[in-house]
């Protein structure tokens, strides 16, 4: 049983470019959340997708957008990249029927913006 998978593992972009990160949730999970982890900090919630809709959003600008597909996989898109967007982007999946259950995290995508 595969866990949460993310691609790519590493990415280098330049300021102003756009990037798309991908996530496949753990089998049986229907909810995908995205987190940004800057160096030396804890993960910060970006948004959460369920039933192909954004259900909750953290304090991130509209440059950050996402999508969820019918197979529950998800994408995180970031437009007009800034140097400050350099971080580890983590995807976490869960089953919405279990409110306080643990999240399963992928290994992340390390994004470097030059």
């Amino acid at each position, binding site marked *: 049983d595969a866990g*949460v998978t993310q691609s790519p593992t590493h990415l280098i972009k330049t300021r102003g470019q756009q990037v798309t990160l991908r996530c496949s949730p753990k089998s049986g999970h229907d*909810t995908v*959340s995205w987190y940004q982890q800057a160096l*030396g*900090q*804890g*993960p*910060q*919630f970006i948004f*959460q997708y369920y039933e192909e809709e954004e*259900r*909750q959003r*953290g304090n991130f600008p509209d440059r950050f957008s996402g999508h969820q597909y019918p197979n529950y996989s998800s994408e995180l898109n970031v437009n007009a990249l800034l140097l400050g967007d350099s971080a580890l982007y*983590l995807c*976490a999946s*869960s089953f*919405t029927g279990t*409110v*306080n*259950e*643990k*999240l*399963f*995290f*992928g*290994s*992340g995508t390390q994004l470097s913006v030059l």
Partner: protein
Amino acid sequence: AQSVAQPEDQVNVAEGNPLTVKCTYSVSGNPYLFWYVQYPNRGLQFLLKYITGDNLVKGSYGFEAEFNKSQTSFHLKKPSALVSDSALYFCAVRGVTFSGGYNKLIFGAGTRLAVHP
């Protein structure tokens, strides 16, 4: 607003000694608290959670955590540390949901645990 604080950037302990990683929280309502561990170049792995019930929660890899409501703390503990326990540890609280946004977690800044042989 919900928040957690991890007052120590780093904790150093000798192998075989007990370890404690501190966490305090601020929530409105009942707290739902979690501990996660992060190894280098890896995502976060769940250790344990407190939802309700016994104040001492047992988790993975021999870790446990003590919930103290009066002190608003949820410290992570292990009776005997291993070198392989060296990693980054995060305390988290479940955020308040307004429209069914379950499982949003609010993380602390993390504590690096270094266990020396």
